[in-house]
């Protein structure tokens, strides 16, 4: 049996996905511009020769690959918990790296060329090169690779990551290596933004959610707006500094396009006496109220996420339409209870993202962005007249590390921040998907860093070319409102919250018991002389309690909905600790600690909801019942 077939059998045994991926690829001819062959270095070791445009290159040193490999390893940060190596070649450097790193270090190796990989597995025995610390990817698909790398990263979330490019690969795959790093870093950025936002707003969203549900009567259902604006253009207005340039042109649009505005853009439009058809409000923080200060909302309908700061929904007098995000389990439970249809959008951390989802849901086409700088154009944070006006210079001086210098759409230097880059990437990904579904997009911001997959155009040209027909937009809004307005008996709403309260108390009692038992189990496991007889009944009791909670539909639908993200973070941390555990007792200890932490989270959220029901919820229910 040849070495190639031996190695393929070995790969099939340890990684069937890799085997499936490469068996198709290695038979393909590949790029004919590159002639790849195996040769011998001067010291007899196998090397790979690449002939391109009449020039011959070697992947490794053609004198002594081992010495070169050892030198390269010295430049790598070997303290990192996860090392991502670009380029495999004949594997000398990976072998040398394995000798120099900790046994817990994980090494992801990316080989973009199936032909080079075939050269390796035809010349060297794979099972002698690597051990279980290595995860190998043979692919030139940057999106696939960055996702796979992230999955490996998630299991070592607390560790440092080192990117180590093997020199020869910079020549042929320099741009590719850079794009993987960028995509991977982008995914981490988005994750960090999401986690930090959710942790910060958890309790506030529950409060807002409950009080907004109490005030649901008189609100319209966003479901009745779905598809009602098919092929009507939409202009999404954001508050970026470039809005100053072209805001006045919006006056000429009137009913030639649906105008959606969110956040601080409302104040700016108000200053310019422009009324959008819809204002979109989603922020759960009390500061969201500032946007409404001094603004004339007559004839402006509102689309709001049910996590919107509760004092806004309560007092908004014009037509308002309730929209849910996919993660809003509390509102979905309420809607199920009362057999209400609802519209939902993917949870976004920015108004721009939500506006985009709404415009698509309404059927608007084309969709035009205005004021979407995603940057501090002309060293300004917003267009003139925005709520929350701050000085960019002050921000830059007090927190310089927060800002990143980047080129804008005209090639000039500008500043942006991590969150804007995450927004640009996530909006770009969504736009790409919507384009496939037949939507078209134009960025008429006339400034900023642009939006991925979106062409730039001046707004006056957009108006001339795309916004030429008139539509009866106010009538469509009125009809949709009338067909979907909520009208639920307030006593039934009260009964619903009583049901929530009863279940919360029951879950809390079980979580308290779980906390006690896991505390005892922890003591037993930590003891110098571990006594299995003491631990076993505790473990069984813990499993039983956990099982009873997880089988409880209310726990799954309601409680986990409130704390899911926090629980997921704990699971990832536990995963990485389990990897490092050295024996079964340690494994059990980490698991018990994770369950104990989760029970603390459950007790905290139950206490919060109980308190909310006993105070704010009862207050508002009684107010509405006229008591």
């Amino acid at each position, binding site marked *: 049996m040849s070495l190639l077939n031996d190695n393929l059998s070995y790969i099939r045994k340890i990684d069937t996905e890799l085997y499936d991926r490469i068996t198709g690829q290695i038979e393909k001819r590949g790029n004919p511009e590159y002639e790849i062959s195996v040769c011998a270095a001067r010291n007899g070791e196998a090397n790979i020769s690449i002939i391109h445009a009449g020039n011959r290159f070697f992947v490794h040193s053609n004198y002594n690959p081992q010495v070169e490999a050892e*030198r390269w390893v010295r430049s790598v940060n070997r303290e990192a918990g996860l090392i991502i190596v670009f380029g495999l070649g004949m594997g000398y450097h990976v072998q040398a790296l394995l000798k120099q790193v900790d046994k817990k270090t994980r090494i992801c190796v990316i080989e973009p060329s199936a032909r080079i990989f075939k050269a390796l597995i035809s010349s060297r025995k794979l099972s002698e090169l690597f051990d279980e610390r290595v995860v190998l990817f043979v692919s030139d698909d940057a999106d696939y690779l960055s996702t796979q790398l992230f999955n490996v990263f998630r299991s070592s979330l607390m560790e440092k990551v080192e990117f180590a490019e093997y020199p020869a690969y910079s020549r042929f795959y320099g741009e590719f290596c850079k794009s993987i790093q960028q995509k991977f870093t982008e995914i981490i950025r988005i994750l960090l933004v999401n986690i930090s936002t959710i942790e910060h707003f958890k309790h506030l969203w529950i409060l807002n959610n409950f009080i907004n549900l109490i005030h649901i009567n008189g609100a319209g259902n966003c479901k009745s707006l779905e598809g009602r604006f098919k092929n009507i253009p939409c202009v999404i207005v954001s508050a970026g500094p470039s809005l100053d340039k072209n805001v006045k042109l919006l006056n000429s649009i009137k009913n030639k396009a649906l105008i959606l505005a969110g956040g601080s853009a409302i104040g700016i439009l108000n200053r310019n006496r422009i009324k959008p058809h819809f204002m979109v409000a989603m922020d759960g923080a009390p500061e969201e109220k500032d946007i409404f200060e001094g603004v004339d909302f007559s004839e402006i309908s509102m689309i709001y996420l049910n996590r919107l700061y509760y004092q806004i929904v309560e007092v908004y007098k014009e037509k308002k339409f309730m929209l849910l995000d996919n993660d809003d389990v509390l509102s979905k439970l309420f809607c199920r209870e009362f057999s209400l249809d609802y519209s939902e959008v993917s949870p976004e951390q920015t108004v721009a993202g939500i506006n985009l989802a709404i415009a698509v849901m309404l059927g608007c086409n084309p969709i035009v962005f205005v004021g979407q700088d995603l940057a501090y154009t002309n060293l300004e944070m917003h267009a003139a007249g925005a709520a929350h006006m701050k000085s960019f210079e002050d921000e830059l001086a007090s927190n310089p590390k927060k800002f990143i210098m980047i080129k804008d759409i005209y090639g000039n230097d500008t500043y942006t921040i991590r969150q804007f880059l995450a927004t640009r990437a996530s909006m770009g990904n969504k736009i790409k998907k919507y384009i496939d579904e037949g939507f078209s997009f134009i960025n008429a911001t006339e400034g900023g860093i642009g939006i991925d997959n979106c062409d730039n155009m001046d707004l006056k040209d957009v108006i001339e070319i795309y916004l030429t027909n008139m539509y009866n937009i106010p009538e469509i809004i009125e009809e949709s409102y009338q067909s979907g307005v909520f009208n639920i008996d307030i006593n039934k709403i009260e009964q619903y919250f009583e049901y929530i309260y009863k279940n919360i108390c029951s879950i809390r009692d079980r979580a308290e018991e779980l906390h006690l038992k896991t505390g005892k189990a922890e003591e037993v496991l930590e003891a110098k002389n571990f006594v299995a007889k003491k631990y076993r009944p505790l473990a069984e009791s813990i499993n039983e309690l956990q099982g009873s909670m997880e089988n409880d539909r209310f726990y799954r639908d309601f409680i986990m909905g409130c704390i899911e993200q926090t629980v997921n973070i704990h699971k990832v941390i536990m995963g990485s600790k389990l990897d490092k555990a050295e024996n079964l007792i340690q494994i059990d200890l980490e698991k018990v600690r994770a369950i104990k932490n989760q029970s603390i989270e459950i007790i905290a959220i139950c206490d919060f909801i109980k308190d909310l029901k006993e105070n704010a919820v009862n207050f508002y229910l009684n107010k509405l019942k006229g008591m």
Partner: protein
Amino acid sequence: MDSLLPSLKQYLPKLIEGIGAMSEHFHSGQYGEGEKLLVQVNEGLEWVMKAYTGIPGFEIEKIQGINAFLGEIVNALTVKDYVLIADLFEYEIKQALSEILVDMGRADLKNN
């Protein structure tokens, strides 16, 4: 002329060490650092070769050997094949310079 030999003997080991450091940078992918040292190594090599030809009994073949590899190094620099540049300096040029150093040591012993 009398001062050339001692100067050469003093300088050659430093140049050889510098070549080692430069190759290390190139093999590790630290091209910026490597290129900085390359400038100094080239200047040093030029001086060594001029100085060596000024010494009675110098061997022309050693110079020709180094020159031959310099041509390859220039080609490698054109296409930015830093691994090859490192290899040529490490395994060819350094070897030739070490042989010159050994010859000068032997010449010393003969004269003494």
